[in-house]
């Protein structure tokens, strides 16, 4: 009995103190740790350049293509070390990334884009067809546009294609990078609502990187705040959302020109208290 509870509490994904270097010289992540529980929606927050995308790519092993390297630390998925696995192998095991800027296959149709998501699957055409239907249920707009070239669809539709394409891999966890980027607030809300439904109804776990702090915290249950390649704060999403420093810095409640989270006095106090 206790073993069951234990395994339920075990992190699905765990990043332990990783360091990432680009081009052998540019140190970008300086010891990042985070955990994603099964069934959770975890937000990875921070300003532009903080290292959110780098963290996600370290997990999905897409760093190699950008000459990035994880030089320290470890990454485990379902208790197994997954650092040496290729993206192909990771997708097979259930870890898939939706990259920042959506990255649809422009010259493929919407439906073909979705089908590429099923590339690694071996459970047969009919299963894939079922999941295609499921994706169309979540994104009816994609069904209307199934034969359009993805490059000619709107930003919101492309984001839906990117998420739908990841779903087609039947993932355990989706690493979703800046879904709100460049989208109108209403569309952002629509996308986040779908993330929530996918999480609740399909049991998909999400780790989502966002600059849109408050929106992300509304939908996440846990959050990490990244600054300059380090996690500077983490906690329950509801707690973070109410935190004075987070509000002050990310919502610009205070009018002062504070370039860094570090400059927030209360944060320093808290940090001293933390360490």
């Amino acid at each position, binding site marked *: 009995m206790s073993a069951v509870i234990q395994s339920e509490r075990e992190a699905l994904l765990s990043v332990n103190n990783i360091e990432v270097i680009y081009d052998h010289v540019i140190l970008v992540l300086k010891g990042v740790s985070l955990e994603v529980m099964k069934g959770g929606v975890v937000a990875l927050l921070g300003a532009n350049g903080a290292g959110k995308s780098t963290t996600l790519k370290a997990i999905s092993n897409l760093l190699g293509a950008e000459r990035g390297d994880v030089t320290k630390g470890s990454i485990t998925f379902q208790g197994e070390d997954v650092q040496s696995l290729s*993206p192909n192998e990771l997708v097979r095991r259930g870890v898939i990334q939706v990259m920042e800027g959506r990255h649809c296959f422009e010259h493929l149709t919407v439906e073909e884009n979705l089908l*590429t998501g099923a590339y690694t699957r071996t459970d047969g055409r009919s299963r894939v067809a079922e999941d295609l239907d499921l994706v169309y249920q979540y994104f009816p707009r994609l069904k209307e546009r199934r034969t359009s070239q993805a490059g000619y669809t709107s930003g919101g539709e492309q984001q839906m294609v990117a998420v739908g394409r990841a779903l087609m891999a039947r993932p355990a966890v989706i690493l979703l990078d800046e879904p709100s980027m460049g989208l109108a607030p209403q569309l952002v809300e629509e996308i986040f609502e779908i993330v929530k439904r996918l999480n609740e109804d399909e049991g998909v776990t999400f780790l989502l990187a966002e600059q849109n702090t408050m929106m992300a915290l509304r939908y996440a249950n846990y959050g990490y705040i990244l600054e300059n390649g380090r996690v500077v704060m983490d906690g329950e999403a509801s707690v973070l959302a109410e935190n004075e420093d987070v509000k002050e810095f990310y919502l610009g409640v205070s009018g002062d020109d504070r370039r860094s989270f570090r400059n927030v006095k209360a944060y320093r106090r808290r940090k001293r208290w933390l360490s």
Partner: protein
Amino acid sequence: MAFDLFLLEVVISGLMTGVMYALVALGFVLIFKASGVFNFAQGVLALFAALALYDFLAEDGWFFAVFGFTLPVWLAIPATALIMILLAWVIERAVLRFLVKQEEIILFMATIGLAFVLEGLGDLLFGSDVKPLDIGIPQGASDWLLDNFNLYVEKLEIVAAATAAVLVTALAIFFQKTRVGRALRAVADDHQAALSVGISLDKIWVIVWSVSGIVALVAGIMWGSKSGVQFSLSLIALKALPVLILGGFTSVPGAIVGGLIIGVGEKVAEVYVGPLVGGAIENWFAYVLALGFLLFRPQGLFGERIIERV
């Protein structure tokens, strides 16, 4: 009337050469689209394939020397296709894999190196004399066309055109309708995104080099049947460059139409304009045409439309 028929014959013989250019250009385009690699070795691949095929068929080849028998044509062709697939695999393992993260120019230079290696290897293994390649394509003119239309067309040319059409149709079906074909197009569109959905690029590269190798084999068979297997075959690669400029580097239909236009264009120019300027137009016609395109339509006839939308 006779004049028109003559023009038609010139056009048809130009089409035959054009099919060759088109096939070599097609091989280029496939690799360029999927990996961004400008494969200088494409023409040499055709030569290498033809040499390998000859070797399976001839009694003075290595295969005969080792096994004591030659292969029938229907077995020799798949065997050569297999060799081309093997070669693609070796190229990926030994060359591409180590250079993927390098600049495109470095990959381009690697393919120049590859061209020399393959050419040298071919020379070393098979010698440099002209080898007759006979896979049973009927020779001579088509009697039917001669009798009914008074038109002189080589049977070989008809077979070549038909084979090329079948090959291109098969490729189109492969790219449009199969899972792997779709993955190939996905990789051509966006490497990063392809990786992110679990498409492994090294596998795709082996596939695309294999497909290019098989296209090269078809080109090699046709050229070899027409003029024998010889090293000048690798020179048609030089004609593929203007074809690519004409058709656009990333366009499959462009490679085909571009190849045909240049093939026909240079023959017609040679016959009708050649005498006025002292001949040999065939040698430079393609380059002048390409130059004109570079000046006025650098993306080529079918240059892929760049989708611009935020």
